[in-house]
């Protein structure tokens, strides 16, 4: 019998959040190529959960995953629609966020300062469950459109 560690469970839940968010987000057609590029930056804690996400359907195309340890050149993530920054390293996350256009890319992070730093969605732990909150300052200011149902579910 193999069982799943707490971290394994957490990242499966987060992977499911990524999948679900993409059902409620519309990127502007000009940036698309039939695929939704989801870029994971930082230590890959998702493991096989990413394999499950790879190739699944969203309204605007199939999900393609790219994993980066670090972003040294903005070009590397030019084609990303979604950017997920793993971990709670403030300095690292700020460096990555500074290299992207936060109005074009749906950025998702997992530590308390993420939204203050300009990220769009923060996933956080609340009483043994994972919840999310949305950056109110960016709502309506981005190139991509987020459905109202998603915004209302965030905390």
């Amino acid at each position, binding site marked *: 019998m*193999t*069982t*799943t560690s707490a*971290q394994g469970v957490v990242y499966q839940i987060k992977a499911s959040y990524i999948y679900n968010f993409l059902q409620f987000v519309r990127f502007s057609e000009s940036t698309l190529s039939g695929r939704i590029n989801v870029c994971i930056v930082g230590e890959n804690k998702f493991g*096989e959960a990413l394999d499950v996400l790879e190739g699944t359907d969203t309204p605007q195309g199939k999900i393609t995953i790219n994993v980066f340890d670090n972003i040294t050149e903005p070009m590397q993530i030019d084609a990303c629609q979604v950017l997920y920054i793993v971990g709670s390293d403030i300095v*690292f996350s700020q460096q990555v966020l500074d290299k992207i256009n936060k109005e074009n890319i749906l950025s998702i992070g997992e530590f*308390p300062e993420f939204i203050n730093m300009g990220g769009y969605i923060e996933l956080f732990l609340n009483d043994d469950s994972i919840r999310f909150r949305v950056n109110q300052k960016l709502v309506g200011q981005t190139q991509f459109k987020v459905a109202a149902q998603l915004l209302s579910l965030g905390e």
Partner: protein
Amino acid sequence: MRKLFVSQILTLVFSANVLAKSDNPVIDITGTSLTELFNLKITSLSKKKQALDKAAAAVYVLTHDEIDRMGVTTIADALRYIPGVEVANIDASRWAISIRGFNGLAANKLLVMIDGRSIYSPLFSGVIWAEKDVVLADVERIEVIRGPGGAIWGANAVNGVINIITRKAQATQGVLLEAGVGLEQSKVVNARYGWQVAKDTYMRVYAKHRQHNSTSEQFNNDNNRHNQVGFRVDYDIANDNSLTLQGDIYSGVIGELSSQATTDGQEQSGGNFLVNWRFTDDDNRQHKLQGYYDKTHLIVPMLEDEREIWNIDYQFEQQWQQHALVGGVGYRSLQDEVNTTPFDFIVPKVRDDEVISAFIQDDLALLNDDLHLIFGIKYEHNDYSGDEWLPNVRMSYQLPKSLVWAAWSKAVRVPTRVESDIRYGPFSGERLESERANVYELGWRKKWLDVWQLDATVYSAQYENLLSLEADGYRNKVSGDVQGIELSNSIQLQPSWLVRLNLSHATMNLSTASDSLSPDGANITQGQMPRNTAQVISMWDINKQWKFNSYLRYVDELTSNNIDSYWTIDATLQWQVSQRFSIKLAARNIGNGSHQEWDTQVPVQQDVMLNLRWGI
């Protein structure tokens, strides 16, 4: 790549394939909706809970969330919510806490640890609950095993093991500021700050201050004050390789030492430092090396104890075919100076002791992992009782819808410094030997519809060589047995409402040898175990911001102490005002007027407390 989450206490009882390389999907990643994701509970889906469900022992874990809901301010308060743990408030600063009988101020059959560091006092046995404290908001969980933990934890884990585990520094980042005022627990202030020191290194520092009023004007030397500061650093050296450093310093008083009041005053202070290094090597063997230094200073009327403990433990875990092997060695050095006045009744005053130990346990998985057979043995050599061998055998069997487990263990309780070295005229403790226990347990665990979980345990413990008071000193002329049944139910009445119902029934029969001069001692101990106890705990999330939790408990009479049976209620109302700010109103011991729990002279007062918390 996975960070393995193995807790020390659970290595005693589970063998789940900890070295599995991949995490099985436990949720349908593309088939779970957002609202479903909101309500998924991580611990119930993860290995830890699955390991608990298969544990071949009577285990219970009090989670961070439950500790938070109950609005408790000390560890002793938190232990009330754990099924099978007898908690009696002796006075405003003292507690009698035990498992399966033998309770008292110096309850000596329970091993208690904080992050693997023993807080059991080798001086007089038992735990000075007033001096051992943590910031409860930073506690990850409290793990309790009822029954002997000898094969891994060694001597003195006779009736149970409690381990209070604090959160890693990464999980306690930022500011936490908490202030509480109450009628009885007059003040509690917690302050903590956590930050990232470097890449992969996180740290926190904290300070805690507590004050409690005395019981009444008549019984008034039991008020207390306690101050504590500490830190924790967690460094992730690499994947599956991490280092933790932590330490605390504290000082506190109970009442006034020089007071002539009926209850003694007490002063205590101390500090400790712990290093813990865990890593997994290329052959997938997990290693753990832990060392700590613990210094304590205790002053009570007529006795002053200064004590230093150095402890180092090494443990490894390895999977080999169907065997999950755990083993380790340990060394402890204790130095103390015990001064008694006005005459020397503890001899020698200064003593250096050593304890060396080694243990090994094999968990054999058979029948496609449905049957587990666990064999373990610990060897210990100490300077009070010499060589001790502590074997245990456990088994668990997964039936289609439930789990059955059984265990046999031998445990010992080693004489304490005071018991062994007391010399007063002809009265001496030099002939005292270890107390022994032979324990059989049977358990059954079942879950219905993912909503109702029942945990039932039946046990029979045979004790011999229990301490007795004779003309020429302490001897071991008491023996007997304790039988009992413990039922623990967890019922999810609604997604936002969990109820726990815990019941226990036990009988204790002790007798003294015919040549003993103190048959009364055995009778007294017998009458200090309540025959029946019941707890109903309700945890209700009214909505996203409001929570209401209530706790009804019933404890049967303690005939020896002339304490009547009683029932009482605790309740808390919690308002999460914003992401970082919450307010909690907690009422304790309400519902039936004041009652006594251990001493007829000491009524346990009703308390109402308001707690404000800012931070995460």
